[in-house]
């Protein structure tokens, strides 16, 4: 029987690339206003996808295929992680 899963696909630029937006958040917001312990911030985009799948493994497989086939993360400049959760 199929279950509903919540899949979180997190997309961010590769570590070799600068992330000016994350840098501004770290230096001009966090560190400047009392959180000097912050060493860095990287901005990411999260796609929260609801889907039906036979099991958790299938939900992960489908998500992997979707990210690759539809280039949800641009392989030239971005990395991604996938986390499958029960809806």
């Amino acid at each position: 029987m199929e279950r509903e899963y919540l899949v979180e696909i997190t997309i961010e630029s590769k570590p070799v690339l600068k992330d000016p937006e994350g840098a501004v958040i770290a230096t001009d917001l966090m560190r400047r206003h009392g959180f000097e312990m912050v060493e860095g911030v990287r901005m990411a985009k999260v796609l929260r996808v609801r889907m039906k799948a036979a099991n958790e493994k299938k939900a992960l497989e489908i998500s992997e295929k979707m990210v690759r086939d539809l280039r949800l993360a641009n392989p030239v400049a971005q990395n991604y992680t996938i986390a499958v959760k029960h809806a």
Partner: protein
Amino acid sequence: MPRIAIIQFPGSNCDFDAYHVLKEVMHLNAELVWHTEFKEGKYEAAILPGGFAYGDALRAGIIAAYSPAVKEIKRMDREKKPILGICNGFQILTEAQLLPGALLRNASTRFVCKWISMRILTSRSAFTKKFAKGDVFQSPTAHGEGNYYIDPAGLRQLYDNDQVILKYCDQAGRITPEANPNGALDNIAGVCNLEGNVAGLMPHPERASERILNPFRNEKARMMFESMREFLTGKRGV
């Protein structure tokens, strides 16, 4: 006369500017074509104009890159017909992998809207044929994601294969960091594919192709479209 399609996606907004130059100024057989209506067999060339196709959802250009119209564009490429992507059109062509590299958020994180100078690096492409290497001309830029990036191996290939067509420069033609509006790697403003029939650039030559629109009082940007005309007529042996 060869038919040239200017493809309109939901969110395109420089389509009429391109049409004006090709049709009204150059008297070419250009047509505005809604993306769902586009069939490549009817056309000898295509322009993907600037704008915000599909509202830049996920990444600028990615949704359009999967559209049936871009499937047609890929067929057109296999026939080596000239295809130009301007600004958002350039983003669509990189996302569709018709051109190498990616266009990232501007290094400043801000939308850049100003006139810039560009230097021609090669006259090998269908859209730079009529220029000489080293020519400098100006066009407006208006984008938030124009920061060209490619990995070091890809960059080497671009140079080895003479695929970098344009770089940002100052008015004297010097390629300096100050002349770079968006943080693009090596000041790259435009590239072409291996064969030279597909090209893309962030600046807008269609907005600088008439003296009256150009604060530098020249029409050099129009040479990009005149190059295309020469490419089309040359290919047909006219």
